[in-house]
């Protein structure tokens, strides 16, 4: 592609070409700066002592005291544990329930299959706020309020549509012929799923699971309304750094980063699937 463009541009004076290149890089860097500055701001604030927070100087003595204080608050570590447990268990359960459904939706000949798939998709559009209240009332009645079980149940429900649609897309990418060959060789349906489909869709499953983990870890509204002190998650814990009288900016920034780091790592790992994940497979990269 470059060759043709360079060939075309032979007539254009060299200086003009260089200038346009500089302009492009300048714009790219400007865009990146705008999107990165807020994150940079929170990074530096987290490393500033409380006296330095209100200073704009680019040079300051970095300190990890904010991180120490956040981690020494037993509460935060507890919330971190809660979030990890809730996110891991909900993701596992979503995949276990979602995989057979995804398999059936892509491989079986069922009447009304597409309608069922669209019904499942439409559930993803329900705004959490619409069901937060009934969940709250029902959970209080059933004693599920502020419980590990309650949070897992709600997160599985709200991530199943995503998991089913993603896995369905991945399974459809596996050539049917491989499964049919195994069937001819005398494998049972169960064998095919466990020995052929499952191993072949492992990449898809890991990508889906990672995205699912990210969604659950990041979730705020259900965590805010359905947990109390016992099963508070990290997102609510970070939010609680907004105090009634003052905001501890340094500690809040440190906590924000601690909450974001696993998500940033996971996000980079699955960045190839991010777009198709967020559009439920409607757009593939």
């Amino acid at each position, binding site marked *: 592609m470059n060759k043709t463009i360079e060939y*075309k541009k032979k007539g254009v004076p060299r200086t003009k070409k260089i200038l346009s290149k500089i302009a492009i890089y300048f714009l790219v860097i400007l865009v990146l700066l705008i999107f990165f500055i807020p994150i940079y701001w929170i990074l530096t604030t987290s490393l500033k002592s409380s006296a330095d927070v209100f200073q704009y100087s680019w040079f300051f003595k970095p300190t990890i005291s904010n991180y120490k204080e956040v981690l020494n608050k037993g509460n935060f570590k507890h919330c971190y544990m809660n979030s990890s447990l809730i996110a891991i268990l909900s993701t596992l359960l979503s995949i276990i329930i979602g995989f*057979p459904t995804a398999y059936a939706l892509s491989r079986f000949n*069922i009447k009304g299959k597409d309608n069922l798939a669209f019904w499942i998709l439409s*559930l993803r559009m329900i705004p959490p706020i*619409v069901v937060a*209240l009934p969940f709250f009332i*029902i959970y209080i009645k059933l004693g599920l309020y502020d419980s590990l079980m309650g949070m897992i149940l709600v997160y*599985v429900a709200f991530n199943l549509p995503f998991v089913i649609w993603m896995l369905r897309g991945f399974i459809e990418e596996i050539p049917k012929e491989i499964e049919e060959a195994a069937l001819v060789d005398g494998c049972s349906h169960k064998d095919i799923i466990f020995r052929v489909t499952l191993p072949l869709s492992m990449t898809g499953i890991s990508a889906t699971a990672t995205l699912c983990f990210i969604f659950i870890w*990041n979730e705020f509204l259900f965590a805010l309304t359905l947990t109390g002190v016992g099963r508070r998650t990290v997102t609510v814990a970070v939010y609680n750094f907004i105090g009634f009288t003052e905001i501890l900016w340094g500690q809040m920034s440190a906590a924000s980063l601690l909450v974001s780091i696993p998500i940033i790592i996971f996000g980079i790992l699955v960045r190839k699937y991010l777009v198709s994940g967020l559009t439920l497979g409607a757009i593939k990269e």
Partner: protein
Amino acid sequence: MRGRRKEIGLFLGPAVIYLILFTIYPTIYTWYISFRNYSFGENFFVGLNNYRLLIFSDKVFLVSLYNTFFYVVLAVTVEFVLGLAIAMLFNQDLKGKNTALILLMLPMIIPPVVSALTFLMMYDPTLGLPSHLLKVLFSTQGPCWLTDPRWAKLAVISIDVWQWTPFMVLIFLAGLQYISPTIVEAAKVDGANTLQNFFYITLPLLKKIIIIAIIFRTMDAFKAFESIFVTTRGGPGYNTQTMNIYNYLISFNYLKFGKAAALSIIILFMIILFATYLARFLRSE
């Protein structure tokens, strides 16, 4: 035949039952309490009274409705325009493009609570960058972005724009890959200028992807919660109060469960209208 039915039930059953129990049932329950005057201590049938009060005699509801549409339309429009522009900028051979894309991806994967808190800091009149820049460059005092009625709406929407423009960029970059450079070259040979190229080649070829991107963004912008709740909680006055925030406040601050449920059903109704359109569109593609 019987065995096959059993098999289908085994594959689809768990997910379908789960989704009915945990998404359909709570929705029906919301519908049920929307006809009741339900709070701690009182619970009796009032018919359509909650709906009547909301629609005909609640000014805050109308303000929230307006704010919601303002938020969704402005945020999605700005994200679309910026996203397309940035995608076009990035759609060429650049050094360090992968790193740049990872940096650009960060705003949309970090927890929304963290982005909201980051901007709570950025828009702080003594602590944030915008006010600092105004002071240094123009030596004027910046406004209190989040508590000034003239700025609050835009400030809150800018958080959404910061978070989700990268989503548009990634989607459009994926789409631009499929536009073969030879078409553009051919048009250039035929004498089309850059602007004509953009409007008569790039835009029509991207049409499907643009529609998908806007649909998904609109759907999610309707769910926006953290960006407002964490920064302004709907204030100053009702300036940034969207239907989601209003719903949260009626449910968990004023504890008027019946009224909140009625509002939930109204929100849900609007989402269903939108989803029907979406399903029709996706099927036609």
